[in-house]
């Protein structure tokens, strides 16, 4: 069985991002970039399925500039077998465009399962997995905190508001990962070295049969704003004073 995992190159979660002066977006110059943490969980899950003997091949796909190859190498160092880089250069691809590209890659690769992060931590859209499922007309199990795979179906425990929901999907299917699904492994230096030699195919949207119109941006960013600055705290001496301040100054009681 083959699993396809989508990985995105995003600003590292440790970075304190800054908004560009003109408000057009986040300043990415000299900023540490990493694999999207939810995608890292997706890679880990796929590699574990392979280690358990349920999957034969783990294929990664990343969509973005040539630099996304770094992100593929990170996943390859974790144990994936090969990578596909769909180079969109500097074009800002939105979730629907990404889903369309993934659809083409999925049709080409014919995996039994596609695993994606539930969202990317840069735009927080939480749309791509669902859109891919619709485009492929495959069942979807989103926000997975547990995945159990057998030959014909996958059982997904979903983190939903107020509890857990378990769904059974027949294969092929789309799964998106939540935070608690697993803890991604440490990519050791010997494995980073091995990953250097693993194959990465480079494709363009055109080579996948997608025209410019299929993937061009449809949304316009009106403004990007920094969150309001936090006010300094104060110290109160007594409980009574605390209650008073919460009531009369903070207005929360």
């Amino acid at each position: 069985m083959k699993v396809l995992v989508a990985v995105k190159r995003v600003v590292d979660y440790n970075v304190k991002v800054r908004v560009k002066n003109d408000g057009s977006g986040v300043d990415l110059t000299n900023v540490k970039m990493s694999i999207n943490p939810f995608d890292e969980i997706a890679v880990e899950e796929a590699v574990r399925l392979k280690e358990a003997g349920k999957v034969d091949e783990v294929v990664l796909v990343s969509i973005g500039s040539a630099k996304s190859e770094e992100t593929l190498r990170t996943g390859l160092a974790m144990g994936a077998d090969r990578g596909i880089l769909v180079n969109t250069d500097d074009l800002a691809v939105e979730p629907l465009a990404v889903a369309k590209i993934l659809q083409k890659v999925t049709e080409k690769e014919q995996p039994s399962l596609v695993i994606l992060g539930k969202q990317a931590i840069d735009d927080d859209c939480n749309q791509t997995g669902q859109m891919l499922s619709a485009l492929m007309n495959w069942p979807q199990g989103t926000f997975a905190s547990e995945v159990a795979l057998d030959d014909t179906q996958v059982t997904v425990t979903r983190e939903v508001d107020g509890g857990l929901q378990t769904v059974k999907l027949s294969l092929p299917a789309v799964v998106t990962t939540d935070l608690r699904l697993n803890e991604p492994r440490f990519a050791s230096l010997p494995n980073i070295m091995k990953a250097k030699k693993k194959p990465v195919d480079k494709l363009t949207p055109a080579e996948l049969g997608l025209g410019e119109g299929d993937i061009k941006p449809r949304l316009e960013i009106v403004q990007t704003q920094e969150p309001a600055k936090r006010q300094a705290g104060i110290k109160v001496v007594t409980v009574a004073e605390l209650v008073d301040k919460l009531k009369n100054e903070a207005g929360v009681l």
Partner: protein
Amino acid sequence: MSNDPLLQPYQLKHLTLRNRIIMTSHEPAYPEEGMPKGRYIAYHAERAKGGVAMTMTAGSAAVSKDSPPVFNNLLVYKDEVVPYIKDLTDAVHEHGAAIMIQLTHLGRRTRWDKAHWLPVVSPSHNREAAHRAFPKKLEDWDIERIIKDYADAAERMQAGGMDGIELQAYGHLMDQFWSPLTNDLDGPYGGSLDNRLQFAFDVLSAIRQRVGNEFIVGMRYTGDEMMDRGLSPEEGFEISRRLTESGMVDFLNVVRGHIDTDPGLTDVIPIQGMANSPHLDFAGDIRAATGMPVFHAAKIPDVATARHAVASGKVDLVGMTRAHLTDPHIVRKIIEKREEQIRPCVGANYCLDRIYQGGEALCLHNAASGREQTMPHDIPKATTKKKFVIVGAGPAGLEAARVAGERGHEVVVLEAANVPGGQVRLTAQSERRKEMISIIDWRMAECERLGVQFKFNTWAEADDVEAENPDVVIIATGGLPHTDVLSRGNEHVISTWDIISGDVKPGKNVLVFDDAGDHAGLQAAEIIAKTGAKVEIMTPDRAFAPEVMAMNLVPYMRTLQALDTTFTVTYRLDAVEKDGATLKAHIGSDYGGINQVREYDQIIVNHGVIPLDDIYFELKPHSINLGEMSHDQLINGSAQSVVRNPDGRYQLFRIGDAVATRNTHAAIYDALRLVKDL
């Protein structure tokens, strides 16, 4: 004035201390011929400059000839010590800190086969496990002699300008009298608690007669031996009250536990992976019961816990001792509101473990500590700005980047992984080694502050380096595990890294062949043993894991012994054969005549790393110095100036494990010592 509880002054009798943070007594083993000379003075002066309120110098300074040093302690039984003490106290006072000294007689906690070859003495014949000497049981004339020695030494310290002294009473002669476990004497110094305390009060009286009532005298003592039939907490509180009521003692420096074994010592002074501030509440209870000025230290490594200790009234002065070995300028950084820049003690305990092996105290990740005469804690700016390319973001590369950044250079670091840390990040995968990651996190924060640029996910090739047009290239690429050590069957063994990183699942019946003797071997053994597998650790050496050292071994042993791990010393793994799922280990011995075959299902070899040096050798022909590092310039502290190839485009240096397997301290020292002059 600041309202930070740590920055409030404290009045101890006539002595005003400028804040609440002290260094408790710790002998870094820097004396020369038993005297505190240049190195010793520079060490304490740096910390006084860094703002500490008081430093308790020495550590077990010897009052008698039959208390020979266990770790190069000061010999305060010699009159000639006084002028050296004067230089030391002057240097510390000059920077506004107070200075005291700890005096002791070690009793049975030393050896007879050194100095004057005098028998070791104690109030019983009971041997101390750690130092192995069988003591002579004290006679009346011994006791009289030693009481006088204490008074003489106290007088010398007063003459040398010390602000006070402290007597050591945990594991040393004084509390060997106190503890029922180590006192077999009859009256007047043995038997009842009164009698067992008589020696301490005789010493205090003799000291008071000599130095008067104004001079500050304190006691650092255990208030609970935490040992079956040892000194109980009830007795500890009673002792605390009697010390208070005697009026001869000005402060109590509270310790809890016993130090006669490695595990006991490690519970008194916990290391990384063990709980922080385990005895703080106990110290607070003694303060509450006595109302005395109380000092206390035991793994309070961070400012927040120290602040809590003082603010909650548990202690008057908080000891941050190993923390000051790592960062001598803690108080200055608190005052300047730069707490986040404090270099954190990671509890690696390299300092203490080294002195118990006869070395000097060194900090695992501050190579300037104890080397104040040659290594700067504040790195000066360079006169000309250069472009540095550093390959590798492990401890060596990051230290090089930090120091180059401090010098004002333009610095680019290329790192193959997605994250910095190298082998330190690997070792930090184990729960008990987690604190190690602060070595990396602190450097990353400093590098960010200094504008160092990082390129992760970059397996640097020679072209990538040269494309940056560097003036200086530093190769800090570390190495890969070296497992090719067998005469046959190398392909059947795995490395400790495979286990620690989780790349290979543990087997069921596993041999760890470890002749590197460092943490990686025990970490791998522990991970495997915890799965319920059978584990044997084998080494050709006389002792296993020698590089891990005494106190660091304790937590491993507590786990490994409980999991029934086998320790096999003096045997060598020669070859491995595969027979189906079974691995046949051919085992020999360096002593000869051994040829055994044993069966396992997994064999791990721990034998350090083989340098990852391809890029160094590729760049070498294009460099000005052809990679040569002048050892003389390195040691003398001048800039590297070797020219072997006038057409070269940059200077090229190789540091850390990219040269040869060593340790984190060596990697960091390599970097600091080289880059501080570039």
